């Protein structure tokens, strides 16, 4: 097995763990962390799979840089929303729906 393949497999495992976290965890901060684990898994797959004969391909690295910027923006937005929610309700979990 090449190193690239190893990275890709680890990426898939991280992605699966992240998805499970985003779906199952109630605590919002941990959920945001789970999302980051998920995203990093996808980035690892992108970089790992694209190595040909041991030489890295620069295009997916540029993509991952863009992806990291997107993930930072999403994390910042999620944190801002969670802070506001915490200030309003004192909770770090999602409120139940009022009418169902």
């Amino acid at each position, binding site marked *: 097995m090449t190193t690239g393949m190893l990275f890709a497999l680890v990426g898939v495992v991280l*992605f699966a763990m992240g998805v499970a976290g985003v779906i199952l965890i109630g605590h919002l901060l941990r959920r945001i962390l789970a999302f980051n684990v998920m995203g990093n898994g*996808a980035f690892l797959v*992108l970089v790992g799979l694209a190595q040909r004969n041991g030489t890295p391909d620069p295009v997916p690295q540029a993509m991952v840089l863009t992806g990291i910027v*997107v993930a930072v923006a999403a994390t910042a937005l999620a944190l801002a929303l969670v802070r506001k929610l915490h200030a309003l309700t004192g909770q770090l979990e999602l409120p139940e729906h009022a009418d169902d």
Partner: protein
Amino acid sequence: MIDPLVWLILLPLAWATLAFLLGPGRGAWLAIAALLVQWCLAFVLAQKVGAGGTALTHAVGGWGAPLGIDLAVDGLSAAMLLLTQTVALPLAIYARSYFKQDPAGTWFWPLMGFLISGLNALFVSADLFNLYVTLELIGLAAVGLVAAGGGAQQLGAALRYLFAALLGSGAYLLGVALLYGAYGTVSIASLLPLVSDDAPRLVWIAGGLMVVGLMLKTALFPFHYWLPHAHGGAPAPVSALLSALVVKASFYLILRLWLGPLQPLLPTFAWLMALLGAGAIFWGSWQAIRAEKLKRLIAYSTVAQLGYLFLIFPLLAETVALKAGVMQVFAHGLAKAGMFAAAGVFIKATGHDTVAGLAGAVERMPVTLIAFGLAGMTLMGLPPSSGFLAKWQIIEAALAQGHWIIAVVALAGGLLAAVYVFRVLRQAFLLAPEGGTVAPVPRALEWSALALAVGSVVLGLRGVELMQLAGVGA
């Protein structure tokens, strides 16, 4: 040189940033003026594509793929661009009156600009990674808009929506990563000849991940759990933008993949898509019939109407199904924007968001009620509305290809839509309760809602041109 293609992305970015600096008052006027220009650009572009009969491309900054980013417009993209600007312009006029002296409107204009920019960029992107970035742009702007109301319920809905959107685009990104690993390119045009029936298992997994992720973002039944709260809880102009345009963006992307690089893989899943679509029609309609809140009713109606879009997948062997799909996207986009706008007027006037509270609306707000009724007509699929044209085309294509079951589902969906639309109309025709007060509403609100609803009906008369455009390059 002025290429409308690039300016459709740059203009909204520019006015969004300026609106942030200028504040909501002057920002609103700027947005309306800029949207008018954008509408003209989209119209010129649609005419160019329609007349040329081929797709147009543009290499950003003079750098073509693979180093730079290629943009491409074919008939389908041009139609979606036109729809986006057509819905956004009346909604901007509506939102200016709606958010007057309302703190919830402070950040509406910048967020709307970023949303429109993301949508336009998505419709012209020609590579899978660029599409991922635009999906995220749209998702983040939309979440911001849902949260703009600032209440705990709205923040909760926004966070739920954010996590659903991030899961969806995460699955899509993993799919893109696997495809890049297999073929070393993300350009839709170069992937097209590479993917074949006997593609490796990896490519099948990639296709599955991308489509499931996008289905989550389109809120296809049973992934619709986030939609009624996000769309039903947001301020009316936001609900209208989200229901009319945002869910269509990820649907467009599914269609793009289906007709493009994933073509050889997906016929296996066509009936699964149609089945989920049928599930969406029945479940969404049932929930809309039961809903007590007006905006919740309309949000569930969106779930149901999105179902029609997925009925076309087993029929896509002939282009008439694609044209029916585009017609349904237009019909629902205009009608649902009009309907949410009308609901916003009712809520502003009566002060509460229940179907029961509508009693007496026929005397007090006839214009808005007509808007609601016309939009409802399109959703039911009564002639001569565009909804009729869309559903008729779906039924015709289904019968021509011998899939009568799809025709039955489409007809049943129309009847169910009639039940929830008439539930609202019946309530509006009841006598007003004693002592109920109705606040006066600015006329711009009522008339922009009416314009959208009338548009959805009148489009039925000009449907041929639109369907011709949608078929260009398909």
